[in-house]
């Protein structure tokens, strides 16, 4: 498994959180996010973090997997905390950074306890009313799931490219890392697009472009 597995955390289980429908969980995440952003107080962020860590324990998530997926983020949050502490004071830094951390972990709990298929159905359902103004809920849901599936994939490619650059002694050359990585990711995306097309995935969603195309060609 890839190291960056924040989004591949899903483990089937039967805890209360697993059994709860994705709708209420998404709503809870939304409310928590709003609260953290609006209240922006250290005490609230810390409470939120404690609550969310409780949920991690309660949902029987793997602490190790969580730690692994957060490691890199913690470094970034560290910098962010230092910046805020310097600019706006320690309490503000705590409020912001602990708040973000709590939300990230809450999102991880959501993905760990929700099968993507369920999540997709919920998104499709939730976007139903917007169909009238031209939103295609299935297409939106599919883009979400592709995002979830391929973020670890991109990370894998990043490690691969880094190793290749290292093997040639170019570990300090950013260009030797970023150029091939970009090319690889784009090539991969093309292949995935081809695979989706071959499976008729976009088409069962009535991808408008393709349909119009076919109509134009058949007339």
């Amino acid at each position, binding site marked *: *498994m890839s190291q960056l597995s924040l989004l591949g955390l899903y483990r089937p289980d039967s805890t209360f959180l697993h059994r709860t429908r994705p709708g209420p969980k998404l709503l809870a995440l939304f409310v928590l996010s709003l609260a953290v952003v609006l209240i922006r107080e250290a005490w609230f962020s810390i409470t939120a973090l404690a609550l969310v860590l409780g949920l991690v324990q309660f949902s029987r998530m793997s602490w190790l997997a969580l730690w692994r997926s957060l490691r890199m983020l913690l470094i970034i949050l560290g910098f962010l905390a230092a910046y805020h502490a310097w600019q706006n004071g320690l309490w503000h830094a705590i409020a912001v950074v602990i708040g973000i951390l709590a939300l990230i972990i809450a999102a991880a709990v959501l993905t760990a306890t929700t099968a993507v298929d369920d999540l997709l*159905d919920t998104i499709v359902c939730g976007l139903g009313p917007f169909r009238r103004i031209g939103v295609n809920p299935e297409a939106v849901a599919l883009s979400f799931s592709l995002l979830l599936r391929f973020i670890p994939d991109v990370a894998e490619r990043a490690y691969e490219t880094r190793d290749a650059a290292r093997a040639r002694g170019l570990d300090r050359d950013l260009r030797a890392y970023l150029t091939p990585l970009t090319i690889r990711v784009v090539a*991969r995306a093309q292949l995935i697009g081809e695979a989706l097309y071959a*499976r*008729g995935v976009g088409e069962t969603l009535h991808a408008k472009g393709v349909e119009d195309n*076919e109509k134009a060609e058949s007339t």
Partner: protein
Amino acid sequence: MIEFDQATCDSRLKSTTLTLSEHRIGVIGLNGSGKSTLARMINGLIEPDSGQVRVNGLDTQRQGRQVRRKVGFLFTDPGAQLVMPTVIEDISLSLRHRYQNKKERHAAAIAALERFDLVDLAERSVHQLSGGQRQLVALISVLAAEPEIIVADEPTTLLDLRNARLVGDVLFSLEQQLVLITHDLELVERSERVLIITDGVVTFDGDPFKAVRQYRASI
């Protein structure tokens, strides 16, 4: 029945006229010879610049959607083909247009896995599968859409000997018509008819054993 009627694709495939009606058809040729182009023209992933490609009477350009429903395409790298985070979700995706009801869809996906004794993999993340398992799951996903024809583009190239044999055996046990693009000369000898492609031209068309002998001699 697959028909190429003076189909060309810029320099990759020169004007080709073929009628492929045999149950097992092999395609061999060097890297860059045009094998993959030929394969992709069968399901309309690549459209001919001139001429026509028809699958069971349907034009790949004008009726691409119906053609792709009839033609299942197996890629070399199953990693790109499996677009959902878990095995069961990926198979369900192929079943989305046939079963609106989620329970039915799930049951059908499980049944598809049962056919190959792979139910244990249902909840597994696609990242956690071995190469052989990935290719089998990709094939199951393709079969779940109940195609009439399977086009496999070097499906065993990335696999070890045991898995290559396994995937080969499964492919040759299917009831569907099979067009197999491969570098595995042992495997291709199991087909009824073999094409050799050289620089975008079909240079041999006929008996598999003769084809392999001629191919070996030409290198």
